[in-house]
C-alpha cells in the first residue's frame, strides 16, 4: 500500500521517479508552497487536485523548472529526478525540460505545420540529424498521441487548423517527441469538450505504459478515472497523498474529505 500522508513520511525512494523533499516556493515574499514531500512513481498517473490557488500548478511547474522563467519565483528544498537534484548547478533546465515534457491548459501548437510542431523538439536538441530519422520520430510521436491516423495525410497543414482536442493531442505528441521520462499535464482537458476530453483521458491511460504522468486537474471525476495516485493540495500544503481509490473512498484528513464531498473549493 502506498497510503502515505504528510504526517507519515515513510517513502520508498527506490521506485520513485521524482522525489521531492521539503519543497518551499515563494513568489516574492508570499509563500505559495509549504513543506511539500512527495514521491512520483514511474509508469503511474499521479493527479494533483485541490481548490484554485492551492499551489498544485506551481508545484507541477517546479518539476521541470518552468518557474525559473518567473523572476520573483524562488524554490527551496530538494527535488530529485532519478536521484539527481534538478536544481543542482550541473543541471541545465533546457535539457531537463526535454526529459520532463509538459502539456498546458490551453492547446498551444506553434503556428507551424503539424510536422514542424512535432519535429521542433527533436530538432533543437539534435536528436535526429537526417530527414528519415526525423520522419520516424514524428510518426512515432503522433502514433503515441493517437493522432497519426487523423493527420497522416495533412502533415504539412498548419497545426492551428486542427480541432481543440486534436490540437491538445498534437501538443502531447510534441511533448513525447523528445522521448521524455515524465509528462506533466496542467489541466490538459479544461479547454476541451467532453468527447475530446474522453479521447485525451484514454490517451493518458495508454501513456502510462511508457511514462510517469503527472496531471493537475480541477475535475475530481477525472482524477478518479485516470490516476492511480492522487495528491490533495490545500493552501500550499500537500494535505494527503495516496492511492486514488483510498483518497476518494477513505480520506484520512478532514480537509480532503470536505473537498471531495464538495464542501470546500
Amino acid at each position, binding site marked *: 500500500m502506498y497510503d502515505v500522508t504528510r504526517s507519515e513520511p515513510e517513502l520508498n525512494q527506490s521506485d520513485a521517479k521524482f522525489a521531492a523533499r521539503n519543497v518551499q516556493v515563494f513568489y516574492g515574499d508570499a509563500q505559495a508552497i509549504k513543506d511539500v514531500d512527495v514521491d512520483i512513481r514511474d509508469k503511474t498517473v499521479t493527479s494533483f487536485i485541490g481548490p484554485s490557488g492551492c499551489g498544485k500548478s506551481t508545484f507541477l511547474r517546479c518539476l521541470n523548472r518552468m518557474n525559473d522563467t518567473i523572476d520573483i519565483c524562488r524554490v527551496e528544498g530538494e527535488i530529485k529526478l532519478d536521484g539527481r537534484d534538478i536544481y543542482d548547478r550541473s543541471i541545465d533546465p533546457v535539457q*531537463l525540460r526535454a526529459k520532463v515534457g509538459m502539456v498546458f491548459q490551453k492547446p498551444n501548437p*506553434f503556428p507551424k505545420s503539424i510536422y514542424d510542431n512535432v519535429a*521542433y523538439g527533436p530538432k533543437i536538441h539534435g536528436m535526429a540529424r537526417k530527414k528519415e530519422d526525423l520522419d520516424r520520430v514524428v510518426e512515432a510521436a503522433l502514433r503515441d498521441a493517437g493522432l497519426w491516423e487523423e493527420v497522416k495525410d495533412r502533415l504539412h497543414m498548419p497545426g492551428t487548423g486542427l480541432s481543440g482536442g486534436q490540437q491538445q493531442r498534437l501538443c502531447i505528441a510534441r511533448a513525447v517527441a523528445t522521448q521524455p521520462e515524465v509528462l506533466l499535464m496542467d489541466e490538459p482537458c479544461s479547454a476541451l469538450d467532453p468527447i475530446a476530453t474522453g479521447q485525451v483521458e484514454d490517451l493518458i491511460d495508454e501513456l502510462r505504459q511508457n511514462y510517469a504522468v503527472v496531471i493537475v486537474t480541477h475535475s475530481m471525476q477525472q482524477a478518479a478515472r485516470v490516476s492511480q495516485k492522487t495528491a490533495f493540495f490545500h493552501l500550499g500544503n500537500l494535505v494527503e497523498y495516496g492511492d486514488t481509490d483510498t483518497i476518494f473512498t477513505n480520506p484520512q484528513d478532514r480537509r480532503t474529505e470536505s473537498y471531495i464531498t464538495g464542501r470546500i473549493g
Partner: protein
Amino acid sequence: MTDSTAGRFDWASPEINAHLRKRKRSQFYLKSLGIGAISIAFAMLALLIGSLISTGYPAFTQTHLVVEARIDPELVDSENPRDGNFRQLAEDIVTNRVIRGADTDNTDRLTDILSNRAQFTLRDMVEANPDLIGETVEVKLPVADEYDQLYKGLLDRDTPEQNRRLKDREIAIFDQLVDAGYVSQPLNWALLTNADSRFPEVAGLKGAIIGSAYALLVCFILSFPVGIGAAIYLEEFAPRNRISDLIEININNLAAVPSVVFGLLGLAVFIGWFGMPRSVPFVGGMTLALMTLPTIIIATRAAIKSVPPSIREAALGVGASKQQVVFGHVLPLAMPGILTGTIIGLAQALGETAPLLLIGMNAFITSAPSTPFDSATALPTQIFIWADSPERGFVSRTSAAILVLLTFLITMNAIAIFLRHKFERKW
C-alpha cells in the same frame, strides 16, 4: 393589478422614459461629434491635396520647342562633339523659325525664348549619338520659364506692359512660333530625371529622390538591427529594476524630442567630432537613424509583448533555450508589428526636414549623388529650397515636389498596411 405591482419598480413610468430619451440623446450627440470631427479632418485633407494639385499640376508638363533642325558640321566638330558651339546652334534654331518683322532686329532677345540650358540638351543629344552631325533631326528644347508660364496661361497678357516680364514684342514673336506649330507641352519627365537647377524649366528631383533613398537606406541599416536588438534585450533579457525602468522612460522621452535637436546632435557629433563631410546622405541617414531608433524600439517592444505567452511556454516546455524561443517563435510572430512600426518610422524620417537642414543637406547641388558620400539634397529639403526660390516656375514645382513626396509616403504606409494584413494573426 395595482396591488400586485405596488412594490415593484415601474419600468414604464414617464420619468424612466424621459431618462431613456436623455441617454439616447447624449449618445446621438457623441456620435454626431465623432462624424463631425472626421468630416473636418477629411475636408482639411481634401483642401490640402486640392490646393497642392491646383498649384502643382502645371509643373507636370513643360513647354518645349519641337522643330526640325540641321546639326551644322561647321558648329559641331565630329571629332570633338563636346566642344561644339551649341549656343550658336540653339540660337540659329530659333532665329531661323522667326519671320523677322520691323522690330525683330535684336537676335539676342530671340534666344531668350529657349531655356538657358537648351544648348546642353542639344550637346547631350549630339554627344550620345555623334552620327547626327550634318543630319536634319527633330529637336525638342525646353523654353524659358517666362514663356512656359505664358504658354500655360499663368502670365496675364492683360497686365500693363511695364509690369509684365515679357514685352508685347516678345509675346508676338512667341505667338508666331505657336501659330507655326513649333510649340508643344509634353509630360515633364525632367521633373523626375533631372537634378536641381537654377532654371525652373529644367530643374528636377532626381538628386533629391536619390539623396532621400540613400539617407533612408543608411537610416534603415542602422536603426533596424539596433532597434530590434535593443527591444529584444529590454523585453526578454533585461532584469526589471530601476536601471531598466530608467532606460524605458528615456527611450519614450527620446521619441518625443524635437527633430531639430537630433539635427544639432548630428552636426556636433558626426560633422564636428568625427569630421564627416557636410551635406552627404550618409550623415543624413545617421542623423535620421537617431530619430527613428526610439520609434522602432517602442514598436518592436509592443509587437514582442503581443506575442501570446502560451507560445513562449510551449517552446520552453519542449526545452528550447531563451535564444531559440526569441528567434524561432517570438520574432517571427512579432515581425508584422515590427515591420509596420519600422516603415512608419522610416516614413516619418523621409518627411523630416529640420535635422537635414542642420547638417547642410539643403545645398544647391546640380548633379545626382552616385554614392551616399556625395553631397545631395533630400526631398523635404529640396522642397524647402524651391519654396525659397524667387523664380515663378518654382511655385508650381514646389507643389509638384510635395505631391511626389506625399506619393512616396502614401506608398510606404500602404506597404505597412499590406504587411500587417498579410502576416496578421497566424496563431
